C-alpha cells in the first residue's frame, strides 16, 4: 500500500518538475494577490496587521484553487487516468498519492512563502511562526478537498470557475481555523485550539476525501 502511494507521488513529482513554470506562477499569483490588499486598503500598519491572517489565508486558498485543475486534467487528457482507474489497486490510494504530491508542489511552497509576505504586513514573529504552521497543517486539507472538486469537474465546461464555486464553500472551515489561529496568537489567546481543530479537519480531509474523489473520478470516466 505504501509503495503504491510512494510510486504515485514520485511519478507526479517528476511530472510536476517538468512543468516548473506552473508551480512558480502559482506562487507568484500568491505574492501578487497578497500585495493587492495593501494597495486597495491603504498602508496603515495597524490595519494591515489586523487583516494579515485573513488576507494571507484567502490568498493561499485562491492560489491553491488555481493549481487544482492540474491534478487530474493532464492524466485525463493522455488516457493515463483511465489506466489508473482500471488497475486492481484501490483508486482511493492512488488519489491520496496524487493529493500528497499536489500538496508538495503547491501547499508546501505557499506555507514556506507566507512568512516572508507576512513581514510586509508587520506581523510579529510569533504570528509569523503560527501562520506558517497553520498553513502547513491546513493546506493538505485544501488539496484533499479540492481534489473532489477537480474530479467532479473533470472535462466539464467552465471547469476552473465552476471548480472554485464548488470548493470554496467547503474550504471555509479550514479558512476560519487557519486564519483564526494566527488571530488568536496576535490577540494573545493562543492558537492551540484552532490548530488542533485545523489538524482534525486535515486528517478528515486527507483520509476521507480521496474516496469521494475516487467515486467522482469513476463517474467522470464512465
Amino acid at each position: 500500500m505504501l509503495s503504491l502511494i510512494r510510486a504515485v507521488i514520485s511519478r507526479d513529482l517528476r511530472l510536476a518538475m517538468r512543468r516548473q513554470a506552473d508551480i512558480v506562477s502559482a506562487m507568484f499569483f500568491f505574492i501578487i494577490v497578497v500585495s493587492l490588499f495593501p494597495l486597495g486598503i491603504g498602508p496603515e500598519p495597524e490595519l494591515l496587521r489586523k487583516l494579515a491572517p485573513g488576507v494571507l489565508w484567502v490568498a493561499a486558498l485562491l492560489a491553491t484553487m488555481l493549481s487544482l485543475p492540474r491534478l487530474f486534467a493532464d492524466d485525463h487528457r493522455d488516457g493515463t487516468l483511465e489506466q489508473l482507474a482500471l488497475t486492481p489497486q484501490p483508486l482511493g490510494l492512488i488519489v491520496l498519492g496524487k493529493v500528497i504530491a499536489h500538496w508538495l508542489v503547491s501547499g508546501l511552497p505557499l506555507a514556506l512563502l507566507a512568512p516572508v509576505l507576512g513581514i510586509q504586513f508587520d506581523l510579529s514573529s510569533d504570528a509569523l511562526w503560527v501562520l506558517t504552521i497553520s498553513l502547513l497543517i491546513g493546506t493538505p486539507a485544501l488539496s484533499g478537498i479540492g481534489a473532489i472538486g477537480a474530479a467532479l469537474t473533470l472535462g466539464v465546461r467552465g471547469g476552473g470557475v465552476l471548480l472554485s464555486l464548488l470548493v470554496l464553500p467547503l474550504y471555509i472551515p479550514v479558512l476560519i481555523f487557519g486564519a483564526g489561529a494566527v488571530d488568536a496568537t496576535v490577540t494573545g489567546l493562543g492558537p492551540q485550539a484552532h490548530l488542533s481543530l485545523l489538524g482534525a479537519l486535515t486528517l478528515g480531509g486527507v483520509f476521507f476525501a480521496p474516496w469521494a474523489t475516487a467515486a467522482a473520478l469513476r463517474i467522470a470516466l464512465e
Partner: protein
Amino acid sequence: MNNRLVSWFKYASPQSFYPIAGKMIPWFWALAALFGVAGLYVGFLVAPTDAQQGEGYRIIFLHVPASWMSMFIYLVMAFWAAMGLIFNTRLSGMMASALAPTGALFAFLSLWTGALWGKPMWGAWWVWDARLTSELILLFLYIGFIALQSAIDDPRRADKAGAILALVGVVNIPIIYFSVKWWNTLHQGSSVSLTKSPSMAALMLWGMLLCALAFWMYSIAVALMRARSIMLERERHTEWVRTMLTSKE
C-alpha cells in the same frame, strides 16, 4: 421479500411515477394554501406584539420556516442523491435535481427576510451572525450543485456528480456550522444574534409551525411539478412519453 422489493421499485420508474405525481400535486397545493392561510392568520392577525421587538418580529413567521425548509430540503436532496447512487435509479436523481432550486429559493428568502429583520432590530442590513452566515454558505452549496448539474451535458453523469457533491455537502454542513459559530463567538463580544429570538408565546410558535407546514407542502408540490418536467425532458425518447403526448392531440 422479493415481491415487496419489486413492488417498491415499480414506483422508481418515471413511467409509473409520472401520473401519480400528477395526481398528488393539487392535493399538496391545497394543503399549502390551508396551512398558509392558517399560519398567516395566526402570525399576522392574532399573535400579540412582542415586548422587545414590537411588531417587526413578525418577520420570523417567514424567516424561520424559510430557514428550516432550506436545510430540510438539502437533507432530502442528499437522501435522494444517495438513493440514486446506491440503487442506480434514474428517478432518484431527478428528484434531487427537482429539489435544488426550491431549496436555493428558501435559502435566499431566509437571507432576505433575515436582513429585513436585522435592519430595524440591530441597525444593519447584514450581520455576520452564525446562523445567517451558515445560511449564506448553504446558498452557495445549492448554487454549486445547480451549476455543476447544468454544466454537465450527460444527464446520468450530472445526476451522479451532483449526488457526490450533495453528499459531500451534507457531511460538511455540520462542520461549516460549527466553525462559523466558533468564528462568530470569538470575534463578536456583543450578543448581536438573530438566534436571540423573542421568548415565544404559544401563539407565536403556532404561527411559525403552521407557516413551516405551508412551506413544506409548497415545496413538495413544486418539486413534484419540476420533477415531472424533468421526466418529460429526459425520457422524451421513450415510448410512454411519445404515446402520452401524441394521444393528447
